[in-house]
């Protein structure tokens, strides 16, 4: 409770540090981390749109950043984060229906979300390089 005066003095049960690491734990933490990371990506999309409206001169600054190695690395991380948050978000929508909640199913779907996050940026890069 927020109003309890002695909350700072109470002993706190160790939680994250004491558990054996398992994939559903990682999937939950990754969902939050990628969500916070996508906050930055959304700011980037807004800046991209606003720069385009401002004209060629301001846009060239965005172009420079996006074309540099750190811009490309950031784009890779954004696509991976988005893919993870998307796959794990669908996983949570399925959980909300009551399905897929057994430890075996939850482990399998967590691994699927992580593998999708690795595969999606590689797939997009392959599409741009070898595809249409």
């Amino acid at each position, binding site marked *: 409770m927020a109003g309890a005066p002695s909350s700072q003095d109470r002993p706190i049960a160790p939680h994250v540090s004491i558990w054996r690491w398992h994939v559903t734990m990682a999937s939950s933490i990754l969902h*939050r981390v990628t969500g916070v990371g996508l906050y930055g990506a959304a700011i980037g999309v*807004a800046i991209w749109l606003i720069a385009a*409206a401002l004209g060629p001169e301001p846009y060239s600054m965005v172009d420079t950043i996006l074309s540099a190695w750190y811009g490309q690395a950031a784009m890779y991380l954004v696509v991976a984060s988005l893919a993870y948050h998307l796959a794990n*978000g669908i996983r949570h929508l399925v959980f909300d229906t009551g399905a897929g909640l057994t430890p075996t199913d939850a482990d399998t779907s967590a691994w699927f979300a992580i593998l999708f996050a690795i595969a999606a940026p590689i797939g997009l890069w392959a599409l741009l390089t070898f595809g249409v």
Partner: protein
Amino acid sequence: MSNSERSMRTPLGRVRAHGASGEGTGHFIAQRVTSIALVLLAPWFVVSVALAVRDASYLATIDWIADPVNAVGVILLVAIGLYHMSIGMQEVIVDYILKPSTKMILLFLNAAFPLVLAVGAIFAVLLVNFGV
């Protein structure tokens, strides 16, 4: 609340308005409804922009935004995405920031900043389409 065992208040009456953010399931439902829209909008945006604006050039970007379907899609993405983002970040703030004054300031900024960003980005899309 000490004699809650003998109180005549219902469990619902006791917990009402005592949640971390002082409200009920509105945000929980909004988070899921917006996520369903984003399941479609986010992958469309990434693939469409990646294919059309692969070298991040100014003219390719303007061409992409000037297409009516892209303009409507990206406005929906910005509006729904930034609302989803704001709800998610509110949950993170409520979970980790315990000091009431810091929490209130961050919650205010988290409500205001995505709104300003969304209006700016949507105005930019309109400007590219209808501007001078």
